[in-house]
């Protein structure tokens, strides 16, 4: 019988860990690779495709970048995501600061209320929004989408920012107040500059949530000039025939900026989201 020595067993185990990790990583990343890989092939090569493309064709990307009706949704998504992110950051920073610095009776209840908002099903909200939006005549406007997206981003912003602000020593604000700052001044001039990592993670996450949002935009915008990217992607899928390279190229362009931001921010994102729940 073949008996492994201690050293060999360790080596074998370590090799097993490496192989298993590599395998898992390849499986998880493969669908993304496949999307990119098919988007850079000529149309003829997308049927019964080989693993590695034999020919590279960026026709789909040229088409997307030169066609205004395909370009506008990117601009709209940018406007919606940036606006919703700023709104969430503004309201979120104030609320998070209040919750972090003033410990009053019921402050935990307020936090629970904020988190509780994440439990409301978006589909349920759309049914109500339909009545509200038609009443205030905001149907088919980007403003409606921005306001609705902020319902999703704001609870996350409050949660992440409060967790971060809790790690900033209170003595900082108090020193600033003694030096003549108001509470708000202390927040803006002293606390904010030292909270950059927390704020950055929040900004990225809120931007992503709004950038990715589908349901509200799908329901409450209609005209092509108000389409956002996620809606355009859904509409590029035909019932019977789909221009796959264009659809995939579009999806890639939609995803790449996010992927880069995600990977760059991964440490802060995990910290921000996991804070308080990993104890």
């Amino acid at each position, binding site marked *: 019988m073949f008996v492994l020595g201690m050293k060999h067993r360790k080596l074998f185990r370590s090799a097993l860990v490496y192989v298993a990790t590599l395998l898992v990583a390849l499986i998880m990343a493969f669908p993304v690779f496949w999307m990119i890989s098919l988007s850079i092939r000529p149309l003829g090569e997308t049927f019964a495709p080989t693993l590695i493309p034999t020919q590279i064709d960026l026709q789909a990307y040229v088409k997307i970048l030169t066609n205004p009706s395909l370009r506008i949704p990117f601009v709209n998504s940018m406007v919606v995501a940036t606006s919703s992110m700023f709104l969430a950051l503004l309201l979120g920073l104030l609320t998070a600061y209040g919750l972090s*610095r003033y410990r009053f009776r019921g402050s935990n209840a307020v936090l629970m209320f904020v988190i509780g908002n994440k439990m409301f099903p978006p589909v*349920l909200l759309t049914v*109500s929004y339909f009545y509200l939006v038609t009443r205030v005549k905001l149907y088919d406007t980007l403003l409606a989408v921005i306001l609705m997206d902020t319902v999703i981003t704001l609870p996350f912003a409050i949660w992440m920012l409060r967790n971060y602000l809790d790690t900033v020593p209170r003595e900082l604000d108090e020193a600033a107040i003694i030096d003549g700052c108001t509470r708000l001044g202390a927040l803006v001039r002293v606390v904010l500059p030292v909270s950059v990592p927390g704020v950055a993670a929040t900004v990225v996450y809120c931007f992503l949530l709004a950038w990715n949002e589908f349901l509200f935009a799908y329901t409450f915008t209609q005209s092509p000039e108000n389409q956002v990217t996620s809606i355009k992607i859904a509409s590029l899928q035909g019932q019977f025939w789909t221009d796959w390279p264009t659809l995939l190229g579009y999806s890639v362009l939609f995803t790449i900026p996010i992927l880069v931001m995600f990977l760059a921010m991964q440490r802060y994102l995990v910290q921000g989201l996991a804070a308080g729940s990993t104890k």
Partner: protein
Amino acid sequence: MQRMEAVGVPRFKAGEPRNAVSHQRSCRLSGACLFILPGLLYLALMSVYPMLYVFKISLGDKADRFIGLGNYVRALHDPYFLLTVKQSLIFVILSATAHVTLGLLLALLLNQPMNRLFRSTMRSLIMAPWAITPVVVAVIWRLLYNPHLSIIPTILRSVGLKVEWTLLGNPSWALVAVTVANIWFSLPFYMLMMLASLQSIPDELYEAASIDGAHAVQRFRFVTIPHMRNILITLLLFDFIGAFVFFDLVWVMTKGGPANRTELMATYAYRMAFERFDFGYAGAVAVLMFFIMLMFSLGLLFLLRRED
């Protein structure tokens, strides 16, 4: 709250110099209100009010006439609604089980000693699906499930398996196919949260267990699991809350088809509202969905807490 009160120390050096004065309490509360109110008002107006308004909508018929609980009675007799409840349950339970077990396995794997560069590269690759939005997830998996555009049937054929690769068109497989896509794209989130929790376990605990003679399985059972208990419960709840009401992925991938076999409660409510314009019934379905989600989440919480 920390307070340093030492005789002879000037007041302004204390942690909270002014909070001992009684009338300051109301000042503090009003100060807090100034900061907290704008955000809370926003949520009240845009989230809580619409949430309550649905109840009112759900009591009306197609022409918005009050019919009491008529829509709820109708839902409980609607075979399609009952089908969506069943399919949502399958979707949620399969997803949550896979997320927690696979997420834990992956987290344990990535927590093994290995080269740092290799680990961070692999971690980034595994994380990639997390950055992908549900709409694009739907596109990617429609691609992978497409018999002509996917590499998977080619691979299966090369190892001698003859399969019909039309999962999304097949009523008995479509729901599983959609669930797999859902498992894939949020698995990284669960893995990362569990990895963060694993890394927060102090090494001394494992060392102490080893000294007491615990082998690897026992260390896992008596050190790792108790430590991760809370995060596991939190993640399960999180998954329940998200998956029960999930809409984007299914809508873009299958629109509930083929033959309603991937219709979930959320897509059904949406269809009733925005394709049939029966907002009262859609509201009732959505409210029922919310309560089923709540019931299951609280039930889960109760079961898991009771074991303490």
